[in-house]
C-alpha cells in the first residue's frame, strides 16, 4: 500500500531558505540545494518549496534555486508562493517542479484551480489552505494567514476538490507554531469527505505528534513540518523509523 509521507517545507527568500529562529532567537538561513540534498539523504518523501519573496527579482532567484534543486534531488517537488496564473504554473514546472501549490491566487480566482488541472492534470494541482477558528467556524485565511476571507474553509476544500485540486494541504493557523500537535479536529473534518490526498500542516513539535496524527486519522496521507526539521530537533530518518516501529507504513532506507 501507499506509504505515509513525511514532508519538510522550505521557505525561500532571496535564494536562501529561511529556517526560522534557533534557540538563541537568531534567525538562521541555509542554502536550498544543500538542505534539499540533506533531506533527500535522510529519507524525506517529498519537498515543498514556498517562494516568500515579493519582488520580481526574487522570483527569478527562486526559479534558479528550484532548477538547481531539481538537478540534484530526484523525489517529488511541490512549489508554492505567488502562483496566480497558469503562466506561473508553467514557469515552475519548467524548472523541475512536479506539483504546484495554489493558495491566495485561487481564492482571488477559483478558476485557477480548474485551469491548472485541465492543462497539467489534477495530480499537479495542490490546494493549500490556511485555516483558523473564528466565531465557531473554520474560516479560510488569505495572504499567508493575515487576512480573514470570511469563507467557510470546509466548503472551500469541498469546492477545491470539485474544481480539480488533486491534493489538499491543510494548515491550521491555530496550531501552527504552538508545537502542541496537529489540528486533529480540523483534519478529521476534511478527511471525512476528501477524495484526494490530504497533507497535515501546522503544530508538529515532536515525533509523537506525527504518530498521533496517523493513528487518529488513518486516511490522512502526509505530515508536513518546517522548523522542527530545519533546527534538527527531529531527524527525518529517526522519525520514519519510529513511526514504522509503531505500525505506520513508511518508506525506509535500504542498506546497499
Amino acid at each position, binding site marked *: *500500500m*501507499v*506509504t505515509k*509521507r513525511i514532508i519538510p517545507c522550505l521557505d525561500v527568500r532571496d535564494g536562501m531558505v529561511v529556517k526560522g529562529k534557533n534557540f538563541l532567537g537568531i534567525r538562521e538561513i541555509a542554502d536550498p540545494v544543500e538542505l534539499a540534498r540533506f533531506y*533527500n539523504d535522510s529519507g524525506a*518523501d517529498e519537498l515543498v518549496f514556498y517562494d516568500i519573496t515579493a519582488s520580481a527579482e526574487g522570483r527569478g532567484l527562486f526559479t534558479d534555486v528550484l532548477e538547481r534543486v*531539481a*538537478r*540534484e534531488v*530526484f*523525489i*517529488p517537488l511541490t512549489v508554492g508562493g505567488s502562483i496566480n496564473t497558469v503562466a506561473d504554473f508553467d514557469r515552475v*514546472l*519548467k*524548472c*523541475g517542479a*512536479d506539483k504546484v501549490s495554489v493558495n491566495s491566487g485561487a481564492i482571488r480566482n477559483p478558476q485557477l484551480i480548474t485551469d491548472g488541472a485541465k492543462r497539467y*492534470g*489534477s*495530480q499537479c494541482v495542490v490546494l493549500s489552505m490556511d485555516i483558523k477558528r473564528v466565531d465557531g467556524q473554520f474560516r479560510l485565511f488569505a495572504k499567508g494567514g493575515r487576512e480573514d476571507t470570511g469563507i467557510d474553509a470546509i466548503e472551500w476544500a469541498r469546492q477545491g476538490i470539485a474544481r480539480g485540486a*488533486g*491534493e489538499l494541504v491543510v494548515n491550521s493557523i491555530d496550531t501552527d507554531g504552538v508545537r502542541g500537535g496537529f489540528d486533529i479536529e480540523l483534519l478529521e473534518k476534511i478527511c471525512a469527505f476528501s*477524495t*484526494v*490526498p490530504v497533507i497535515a500542516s501546522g503544530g508538529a513539535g515532536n515525533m509523537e505528534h506525527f504518530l498521533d496524527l496517523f493513528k487518529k486519522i488513518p*486516511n490522512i*496521507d502526509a505530515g508536513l513540518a518546517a522548523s522542527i526539521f530545519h533546527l534538527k530537533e527531529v531527524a527525518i530518518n529517526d522519525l520514519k523509523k519510529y513511526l514504522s516501529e509503531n505500525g505506520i507504513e513508511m*518508506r525506509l532506507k*535500504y542498506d*546497499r
Partner: protein
Amino acid sequence: MIAIVDYGVGNLFSLCASLKKIGAEAIVTRDPEVLTKADKIILPGVGAFGDAMDKLESTGLVPHIKKLAAEGKPFMGICLGMQLLFDRSFEFGEKQGLGFIKGSVCALADDIPTTLKVPHMGWNALDIVAPDEPLLKYVKQGECVYYVHSFYAKDCDESVAAYSEYSTRVPGIVRQGNVCGCQFHPEKSGETGLNILRAFAEV
C-alpha cells in the same frame, strides 16, 4: 546514447536530469535517424492515453519505433509511456496502443474499493516476481517507488517483473523481450529510481 522520444507530452526536465546524474548520455528527439543510431530508447508520457497516442502517431514515428523495437533495441516506456506499450486502453473509450506487450490498460477505480484514493499517488513497495529482471539489478525486494496514475495494466501477468499492492496488484515493471516499462516514475523515485535507470543504461 539514450534517445528520449519527443512527441510533445509531459515535462522531461527530471528525466533528463536523472539520466545526466547517473552519467548516461541522453538526447530528446523526434528525428528517426537519431532514434536509429541510439543504443536505447525511452518513451516518456503523462496525461491521457488517447491524446498521447494521437500525438505519437502525428509525429509519424510509430512505424519506425515498431521496427526498432522489433529489431531488438532496448526500449523502455515510463508511466503513460509504459501504458502505450500495451495492446489497448479503455481511458475515455477504447484506443489501440503500440501492441508490444499483451494486455489492456483499465481504470483503477473499477477494481479497488471506493475508500482508496485515485490517482494511486505516492510511494509504494515493489514486490519483485521476476528476480532476474535486468532493471532490478540494483533493487531489493520491498524498495519503494513513486507512482502517480489512475489507469493500470491488466491481463499481462506473464510480462510482470514487479507489482505494487493497492488493493489490486498494480504492475510496476513489465517486460516482453527487449521492451520494458515502469508504471511509476523512476526519475522521481530517489536512489531506487536512479538505480533502475542505471540498470537500463547498462543493459
